[in-house]
Structure formats: structure tokens, C-alpha cells
């Protein structure tokens, strides 16, 4: 697949092995993957290169994932409308509600299988799985 035609996703998670696992899975399926360790770094990188999808953890240093998604939604367009998928170990009803309130589009509870990650990523990016 030509480089320009690849959909770009950003994985925002402070665990290096999670980022590696998602990168492995998504690159294999033809996505271009950017990374950030927390919401602050993600915001900074997004200003330089917008993405088709944000895949975001909740518990990260300096800025948690929900505050990050909320911050994205408050920025200028088109950045503000970037789809956001929360993948988190937190799986309680209050976490789903908080994610929705922050502006997340979808929520997956960890551990996430490769198949499920690809399925949801494709759906949110508007590509075939």
C-alpha cells in the first residue's frame, strides 16, 4: 500500500509493550502508527501530524486519557473531531460514562485481542477490516 494512502493512527499509552503490541498489529494490517507516552505528548504530536484515529489509555503520567480526549475536543477543527478509542484496564460503569462525557467514540476493556483491535480500528477509521 502506498505510504500516502495508509491511514494514520496514534497510540497513546505509557506502557512500552502495549504500544509495541498495537504497533505490531496495526502496521501488519497496513496502518501507519504514531506513538505518545501521555496526553501531553500526543497533543504536541497531533499539531504536526493529524491522525485518523486516537487509541488512548486512561492511566498515564501528567495527563490521563480522559482529560486528553476532552482537551482534543476543545481544540480547533479538524483536530477536535478526531475519533478516539479508549482501551483501558478500567472497566467500570463510571469509566464508560466518563469516557462518553469526555468525547470518546468507543471503549475497549484490556486485555484487547489483536482481532478486536483491528476490527474496531477499521470501523472507526472507516476502512474495511
Amino acid at each position: 500500500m502506498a505510504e500516502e494512502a495508509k491511514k494514520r493512527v496514534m497510540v497513546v499509552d505509557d506502557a512500552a509493550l502495549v504500544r509495541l503490541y498495537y504497533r505490531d498489529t496495526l502496521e501488519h494490517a497496513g496502518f501507519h502508527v504514531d506513538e505518545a507516552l501521555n496526553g501531553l505528548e500526543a497533543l504536541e504530536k497531533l499539531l504536526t501530524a493529524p491522525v485518523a484515529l486516537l487509541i488512548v489509555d486512561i492511566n498515564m503520567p501528567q495527563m490521563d486519557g480522559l482529560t486528553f480526549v476532552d482537551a482534543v475536543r476543545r481544540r480547533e477543527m479538524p483536530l477536535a473531531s478526531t475519533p478516539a478509542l479508549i482501551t483501558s484496564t478500567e472497566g467500570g460503569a463510571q469509566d464508560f460514562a466518563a469516557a462518553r462525557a469526555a468525547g470518546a467514540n468507543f471503549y475497549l476493556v484490556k486485555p484487547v485481542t489483536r482481532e478486536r483491535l483491528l476490527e474496531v480500528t477499521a470501523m472507526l477509521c472507516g476502512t474495511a477490516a
Partner: protein
Amino acid sequence: MPLIRKPAGSSSPPSRDPVSVRTALTSGTDDERWAAARAAPDMPEGVDALGDALATEHSTRVREAIFTSLARICTARSVERVVPYLRSDDASLRTGALDALRAMKTVVGPYLPRLLHDEDADIRLLACELARNLPSEEATRLLCGLLDSERESNVCSAAVEVLAEVGGREALPVLERCADRFRGTAFLEFSIRITVDRIRAQSSPPRE
């Protein structure tokens, strides 16, 4: 020449009356609460006033200043006042608490064995991150102790993530046992494999 030079200014010293700092921490403008949070470490009972204020503070920057001050105090008491916020439903409070505990690495050590065996899996998971700031041998020992009895795959993953940085060869059998117990959990199997490879590939000391 548009460039000008002015004499150095001076600032009025912050209020040193303990009663007004406790009150200022929970009332007044954002700027006043911010100033009070920053001045609190110099006040008697500042640690408790700060810990109490966290329960009701809604401004992100004032909260940040409160956590910074607790981290500066850096005593057993400041650890004890911060730890409960790891249990908060509010993600930003959890993040603030964890960041503050990370900054208190010289005093948080004694609390880790208890946190790593807390009945709440979320606490055990966050505590794994705190082990990262310990010397490698101690961190490996604590995380291996957790792994052998841990039932939650997410907590195991958090421990394995840190072992990827600090783990020594003594972690290898524990990791293999963990992989056996969690066959079929794709991400954990992946993490363990990477971590085992990393530990195995450590160089040997040079010949003399």
C-alpha cells in the same frame, strides 16, 4: 534605544499564619489557593491541610500545586495522604496521585509490598509502576513476588512491563510460570515473550 533596564523588584513574603493557610487552601480565588498550596510545606501540619484540600479542589493547576507540595514534603505522612487518591474514580486524581508518589521514590519503598498485595487489582496495577523507581534488584524481587500469586492478567502485564526495564535473570522462571498460567491471553503472552528475550539477551561481563 527601546531596550530598557529596570531595577530588580521584590515580592512580599507569603503569609506565614498557619490558620490562614488552611483556610486559604479551601477558599478564595484560584490564585489564592495556588499560593497557599505552594506555601503549605513550610507550615506546621501543612501535609494534612494539603491532603484534606485534595478532596474538594476542582482546579487542575491548584491540584497540581497541592500534589507538588506533598511530593516536596516527601515523608511517610505525605505518602499516606496521597495513596488513598489512587483509589479515586476520577482519572485525573489517580494520575496526580501516582505522579506525586513517583516523585517520592525515597520514601515510598516501604509501602510497596502492601500496595502490591492490595485486595483491589487497580491498586496493585498502579503500584507496579512505582516499583520502576526502585533499584533493579529490589524491583525485580517485589514484582516477582506479585507475579507468582497474581490472578488478574492486567496486573501481571503491568508487572511484566516494568520487568522489561529492570528484570534480572532471577525473573525468568517466574515469567515462564506466569506464561503457563495465562496461556491464551494474547497480550500477556506477547509481553512475557518480549521481556524474557530482553532479559536473556543481557551481555555477560567482559573477560579479564
